[in-house]
């Protein structure tokens, strides 16, 4: 499948990524927005504040909380009371939410939150990588990563659709690379209100805090029942796999735009070398693939759009016939020296009949620029793996040895 965009130029605006997201949130008709400022997420919440000040989001309250911890905590109350909820954060703010993330998922509250991906401190750094959200992978949130402005905008509606599905009822993070997507201006179709109303029905929770039907939320679970609550969360994640595909397909039917569901592929069919990545890096790789294909290099791209639930089957089906796979990661698990996309892809192939060499390359941490040349060098190295095997399984691809 390739990217399908029948973009109507008359419908396009030049907008900043953050504005496109704020607009998308607005047309999803949230009831409660709660957010705390942190770079590079701020423009999203500022734009939403302006929409509120101009009376453009009906039936909505915006809570200007005193911390990210309270931003998400407030939404626990709002979502439990039956509201469609939204927040946005990044980096330190997301790490501060850590405890609440588990809580939201365990309480099965379908909150949607945009993450403007940023490096974590120390050393403090406000630029892009994906360490912040990847570090939250076990908290029980759906995680999707967008390639460009149109995708992150449209992903907002898709995320609500999946999160609020009765068979899922799990929170979702839509991830956009900080600055690279949040602060860039691109031509974009701002999510259409009339089509969203057709695509995304009003949120009608099965259970809510209602004095007419008093229920207890967040009860205490002892060892006789706790495991089953966790099992059901995993089952909901399993259910989310096909729902994410369906949400993308249905979105295409109504809006005419498609970016993949769990994954997307580009030039993979006959590829010897497949590069895997998430987020805006995918766009850079797309260009490199075009360039190298023109020179006869059989290279392809596997875009991983959904990281949680992890689309192991979909990934396996794409890479099974390749001669080498390189997973690129804007994160590192310290002490393992691997990025998570690499670790998890590698792990998902073990105990299967797929036997393809796979290596991991960590890249673009703390906002380090990723020029096409870096990707081309990685492809060059991958050719060597085909002929003489793996030399280094995982390493930084853009380390400055002279600084060490």
């Amino acid at each position, binding site marked *: 499948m390739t990217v399908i965009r029948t973009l109507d130029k008359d419908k396009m605006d030049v907008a900043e990524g953050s504005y496109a997201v704020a607009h998308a949130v607005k047309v999803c008709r949230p*009831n*409660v927005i*709660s957010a705390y400022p942190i770079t590079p997420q701020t423009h999203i919440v500022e734009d939403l504040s302006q929409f509120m000040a101009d009376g453009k989001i009906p*039936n*909505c*309250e915006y*809570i*200007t*909380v*005193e*911390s990210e*911890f*309270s*931003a998400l*905590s*407030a*939404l*626990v*109350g*709002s*979502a*439990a*009371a*039956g*509201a469609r909820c939204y927040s946005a954060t990044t980096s330190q703010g997301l790490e501060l939410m850590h*405890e*609440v993330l588990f*809580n939201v998922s365990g*309480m099965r509250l379908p909150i949607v939150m945009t993450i403007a991906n940023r490096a974590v401190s120390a050393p403090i750094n406000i630029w892009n990588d994906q360490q912040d959200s990847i570090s939250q992978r076990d908290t029980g949130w759906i995680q999707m990563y967008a390639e460009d402005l149109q995708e992150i905008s449209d992903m907002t509606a898709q995320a609500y659709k999946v999160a609020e599905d009765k068979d899922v009822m799990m929170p979702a993070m839509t991830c956009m690379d900080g600055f690279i997507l949040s602060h860039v201006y691109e031509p974009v179709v701002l999510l259409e209100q009339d089509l969203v109303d057709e695509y995304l029905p009003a949120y009608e929770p099965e259970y809510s*805090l*209602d*004095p007419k*039907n*008093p*229920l*207890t*939320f*967040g*009860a*205490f*679970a*002892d060892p006789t*029942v706790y495991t089953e609550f966790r099992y059901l969360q995993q089952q909901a994640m399993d259910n989310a796999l096909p729902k994410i595909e369906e949400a993308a397909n249905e979105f295409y039917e109504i809006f005419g735009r498609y970016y993949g569901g769990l994954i997307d592929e580009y030039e993979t069919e006959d590829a010897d070398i497949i590069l895997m990545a998430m987020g805006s890096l995918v766009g850079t790789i797309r260009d490199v693939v075009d360039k190298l294909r023109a020179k006869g290099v059989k290279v392809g791209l596997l875009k991983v759009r959904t990281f949680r639930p992890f689309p192991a089957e979909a990934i396996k089906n794409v890479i099974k016939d390749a001669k080498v796979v390189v997973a690129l990661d804007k994160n590192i698990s310290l002490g393992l020296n691997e990025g998570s996309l690499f670790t998890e892809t590698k792990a998902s192939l073990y105990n299967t009949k797929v036997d393809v060499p796979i290596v991991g390359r960590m890249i673009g941490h703390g906002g380090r620029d990723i020029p096409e040349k870096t990707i081309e060098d990685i492809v060059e190295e991958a050719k060597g793996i085909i002929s003489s095997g793996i030399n280094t399984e995982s390493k930084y691809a853009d380390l400055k040895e002279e600084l060490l």
Partner: protein
Amino acid sequence: MKSLFTSGHRGCAGCCDAMVAKFTLMAAGEDCIIISPTGCLEVMSTPYPETSWEVPWVHSLFENAGAVASGVEAALKAMGNKGDTKVIALAGDGATLDIGMRSISGAFERGHDITYVCIDNEAYMNTGVQRSGATPFDASTTTSPAGKVSYGNPRPKKNMPAIMAAHGSPYIATTSLGYPRDMIKKIKKATEIEGPTYIHAHAPCTTGWGFDTSKTVEVAKLAVQTGLWPLYEMENGEVTKVRKIGKQKKPVEDYLKMQKRFKHLFKMEGGEEQLKLIQALADKNIEDFGLE
């Protein structure tokens, strides 16, 4: 009157939390939503799949009751609730004065229409009686034990009502389990006033303080009658009403000697001097609030 907090919960005999919960619901009635942070109350009232709550109730975490209550209130407002449904946080002293301070401060500064009831039993009871910011001077707890060189908790209680008053709350009141009618009246008043209102309920814990399970009310009354726990109301930052002690005034020893957490003061060398310091705290309350 039908109790909206049902029996069968796992609280100790004479449990202060259960009593405050019951009185709060007597004041609030059925049209309310209760938010409780982690603590004894949450654990003993909601062992899944059972619950003691006949009203909608939500527990999220330990340190976020103020924020969760904000969110509930905002959602009701956004979705067209006319403001009749009362949003009430029922939280322990640790969850309020210590770990939840940021959250309650934010909620009150933003002016949400909520009532926050702090059940103050003066230590972390759920984890085994560790000191909190609400633990009184010289109380022996498991993390402020009396010993050869210690008389117990070295600091007086944090003055939480004053902190909440500084947030511009329209109504703040202290109350006590010794006076249920006072408690019900004040909580009712708090829920009827628009904006963030705060009730600080002194609540003796039989287990943590070490007194007979039949004495919760008696101990609570003595805290008030000695002047150690003054009962007052504040409207828009001004004290508007106090409960006079008058002829009922008792020396602090009468209150302290009923509790194991203070028994060292009656045995240790220098204990008498400590009792004088505690009497001075009571006398200052009596003077400051004009309780005589």
